[in-house]
């Protein structure tokens, strides 16, 4: 992975050359972005770069045939999901660095959703994108290791392309500044706080050596760390994208202010949230006509998209279950009456419950093994663990 100063320097240099290319020739500009991104990603993660290029070409071929044959338009994009599933089910035997292997899978889970989104939107609009745009969307280096999940609206159709260059550069620096504070400073403070709670504990995992209150505090701190890390990383990616005139979407809107699970998903990982709603929830809803079941199934699938592990299956079932439950309770008059009577107390309780639930599921899902995840649960609820 690039050191932050190197990343900013390369992006400034690359974007300067990019802006020297004729603005009317977007194909040439996108080809340059695709090539620059390929070189940068290949230098660090060669296998992941080759896989992304191959997937970009596959998406482009599907798009060509989608315009000619209706079944390809309908079922072709699922081929991308099949590729992702194949890579998730089986670890590929290649001689490369562990990080390259990790990125082969994690990078893929993001760029495949981006390409899937592109294929679905171009089919609906009968729009045709060129190969270089598929490759730029798959490989664009600031978003290669993680989100946001975006399509051509962020690239060749970006509103930022109409703005003056200086405006985009200054706005990019503004986003990067926020990203630096979150990614480097806030995560450091949260790490120190978590360390102060596990000080004196010598062996990993720490779970069974802590009492429930310390486990709860570590769980909340780890979740805050996850937010600062992901939001900071995304902010830097948005800033670097603006140097090229690309408007990557915002991914977070103060998720720690959410007072219910639906509101949480209107603030957390917004690009994924939009993807779930439009491309998973709505198609399921249209076929089975049951909103709560559709929501539950959509989130269960998204849990497995994160990782094919039982921990993430629990994460998906947990979020899907909470969303389905909220959809039912939010229409309940008795609940509304109690909420009205309790006023601010209800708001505080709702906030605490929401934050605790999402932090719990996040901590559970991110444990490396099922046994570790269970140890965390035992530690949190003060239960006895027997080997």
């Amino acid at each position: 992975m690039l050191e932050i100063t190197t990343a900013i320097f390369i992006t400034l240099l690359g974007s300067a050359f990019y802006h020297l290319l004729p603005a009317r020739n977007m194909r040439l500009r996108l080809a340059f972005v695709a090539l620059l991104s390929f070189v940068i990603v290949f230098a660090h993660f060669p296998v992941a770069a080759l896989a992304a290029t191959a997937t970009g070409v596959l998406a482009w071929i599907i798009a060509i045939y989608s315009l000619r044959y209706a079944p390809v338009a309908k079922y072709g994009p699922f081929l991308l999901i099949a590729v992702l599933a194949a890579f998730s089910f089986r670890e590929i035997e290649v001689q490369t660095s562990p990080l390259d292997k990790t990125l082969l899978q994690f990078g893929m889970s993001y760029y495949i959703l981006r390409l899937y989104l592109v294929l679905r939107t171009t089919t609906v609009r009968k729009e045709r994108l060129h190969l270089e745009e598929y490759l730029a969307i798959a490989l664009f280096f600031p978003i290669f290791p993680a989100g946001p999940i975006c399509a051509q609206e962020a690239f060749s159709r970006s509103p930022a392309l109409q703005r003056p260059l200086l405006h985009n550069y200054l706005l990019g620096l503004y986003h990067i500044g926020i990203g630096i504070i979150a990614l480097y400073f806030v995560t450091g403070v949260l790490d120190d706080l978590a360390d102060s709670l596990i000080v004196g504990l010598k062996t990993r995992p720490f779970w069974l050596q802590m009492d429930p209150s310390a486990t709860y505090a570590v769980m909340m701190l780890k979740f805050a760390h996850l937010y600062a890390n992901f939001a900071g990383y995304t902010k830097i990616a948005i800033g670097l994208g603006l140097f090229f005139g690309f408007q990557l979407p915002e991914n977070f809107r103060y998720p720690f202010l959410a007072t219910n699970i639906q509101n949480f998903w209107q603030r957390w990982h917004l690009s994924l949230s939009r993807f779930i709603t439009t491309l998973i929830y709505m198609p399921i809803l249209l076929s089975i006509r049951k909103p709560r079941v559709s929501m539950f199934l959509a989130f269960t699938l998204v849990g497995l998209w994160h990782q094919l592990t039982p921990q993430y299956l629990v994460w998906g079932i947990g979020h899907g279950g909470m969303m389905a439950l909220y959809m039912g309770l939010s229409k309940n008059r008795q609940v509304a009456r109690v909420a009205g009577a309790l006023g601010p107390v209800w708001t505080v309780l709702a906030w605490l419950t929401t934050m605790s639930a999402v932090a719990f599921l996040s901590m559970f899902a991110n444990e490396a093994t099922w046994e570790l995840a269970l140890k965390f649960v035992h530690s949190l609820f003060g239960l006895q663990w027997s080997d």
Partner: protein
Amino acid sequence: MKVLIEKLKTSAGLASDRETWLMLAVSTAGWAFYLYQYLCGSGLGVAIPRYAVY
């Protein structure tokens, strides 16, 4: 300055002037932290996405 804040508010999709000032202050602090780490510390290291920290 008011024009600048208005432009930033619109471009960054922020809700109010107060939020814009706050975010601008956070961003400035970010760059100050970057410069401090670059000049007096050991730099900031790589930008790590979330899965690498677990």
